[in-house]
């Protein structure tokens, strides 16, 4: 079952002559991990950032085609490119969360960081808040490290802990999809392993799309892989097929390290 279905999607940045993404058709499977790989400038981050329309923070983008998101209550698909109202944007982003390359802890306590999205959602009950925060921190394998200093500033955590905090913060609002934009490229190998393990575990509850520069990472954790080049989707398949039996020459050249 698909959680998201991208159909004939094109994207142009404001003022750009040519589109950065051309006619992309890509399914995102529910409760699977889909990775987007490709050389710098291929449009993989642009595509990911279209999937919760975070692009709209900066006006003047041109969207074309459809990005359909499964509506869990009706079972139907809504085209998120049709969203215009602020309220609908807020709902979209509560359903489709995002983790960035650089950890982005907010300048507040660890507890308030995780509770932020919940408070935005209107949850005021103290015991419900602390239950959900605890669950999110446990789910992000951070609880044991921070349970005795929830009131301390999140800025004092290490880079890897900060990134797991950001994941906990996103998980707390129970999204249907989580988008990871190179979540480990600013981290050391041990923190990277912890994040990868976490992403694989999250798959049970959340569908995941991840942009990565690291092909080993894509092959280690993802179920499906899409290879992109210069704004085109070159090939999409099960991860093992992409890495063992790519159909396209360009894909093979990239994964064997001949370019990129």
């Amino acid at each position, binding site marked *: 079952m698909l959680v998201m279905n991208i159909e004939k999607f094109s994207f142009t940045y404001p003022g750009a002559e040519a589109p950065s993404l051309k006619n992309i058709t890509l399914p995102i499977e529910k409760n699977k991990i889909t990775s987007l790989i490709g050389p710098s400038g291929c449009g993989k981050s642009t595509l990911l950032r279209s999937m*919760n329309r975070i692009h709209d*923070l900066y006006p003047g983008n041109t969207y074309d085609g459809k990005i359909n998101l499964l509506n869990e209550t009706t079972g139907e698909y809504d085209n998120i490119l049709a969203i215009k109202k602020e309220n609908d944007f*807020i709902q979209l*982003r509560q359903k489709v969360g*995002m983790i960035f*390359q650089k950890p*982005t802890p*907010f300048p507040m306590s660890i507890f308030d960081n995780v509770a932020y999205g919940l408070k935005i959602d209107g949850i005021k009950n103290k015991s419900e808040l602390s239950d959900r925060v605890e669950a999110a921190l446990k789910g992000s394998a951070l609880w044991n490290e921070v349970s005795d200093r929830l009131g301390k500033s999140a800025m004092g955590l290490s880079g890897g802990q900060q990134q797991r905090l950001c994941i906990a*913060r996103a998980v707390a609002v129970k999204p249907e999809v989580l988008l990871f934009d190179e979540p480990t490229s600013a981290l050391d190998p041990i923190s990277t392993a912890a994040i990868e393990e976490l992403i694989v575990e999250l798959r049970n509850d959340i569908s995941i799309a991840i942009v990565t520069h690291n092909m080993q990472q894509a092959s280690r954790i993802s179920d499906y892989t899409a290879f992109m080049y210069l704004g085109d989707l070159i090939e999409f398949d099960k991860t093992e097929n992409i890495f063992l039996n790519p159909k396209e020459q360009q894909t093979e050249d990239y994964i064997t390290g001949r370019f990129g």
Partner: protein
Amino acid sequence: MKRLLINKIVLALSTISAVIGLAFLAWILVTLFVKGLSSFHFSLFVTDLINNGLRNLIIGQFILAGFASVIGIPLGMIAGIYIREYGRGRYANIIRNLSDIMMSAPSIVIGAFVYAIIVVPTGHTSGFAGSIALAIMMIPIVISTTDSMLSLVPKELREAGIALGASKYRVILDIVIKAAKVGIMTGILLAFARIVGETAPLLFTSQTSNYFSLDMTHAFPSLSVSIYDLASDVQTSSRDLAWAASFILTAMVLIINLTGKFITRNKK
């Protein structure tokens, strides 16, 4: 050889320039300290100018600057937030440039402006007029501080807030301003230090008063304006009092400035 020589000359010239600059600053401070301290007495803090004290002037100066801050800080911060977070392209740039021009406007001109729009129509000088003149001086400083401190907040932080479903204004209020808080507070403190010692905007707006007063609808006691009056007085005792007042004013500004520096250093 030649490069080494040029290096030495440049080093010597810049050292001499620095020494000259600092020497004058030290001279001012030492003169102020010596002359101010010789006529300084703690009774200055408990009697008013009419009894050769400074109490009403110090309190008045802080009320003038404080009321100016009540007007200037919110307006400046909101304008700064507008041009950094909401303003787009040319329109925001025009406001930013206007604010920069305002910042370098001569303070006596601001005094004359407030004289024309408030003192003349109301028929007399008042504490409000003085505070408004000081607020006009303060606004562009607060705008520029807010603007530049917000620009230091990484855009990823804003995106992370938006990605959690927060609306733009909540991201600004809850996250961006918090991240820039220390810088903005320091800037506001420095802006306050800047206006608390001003004379020209007050000279013909609030004037000064020899008596203790909390009534801002009339001429209002001001330390800086009184220094101006006392320093040009024929009596030696008045001029001595002016030195003591200058010393106190400088010390106040210095303490506020150092507090600002201290906050920034401790938070970084």
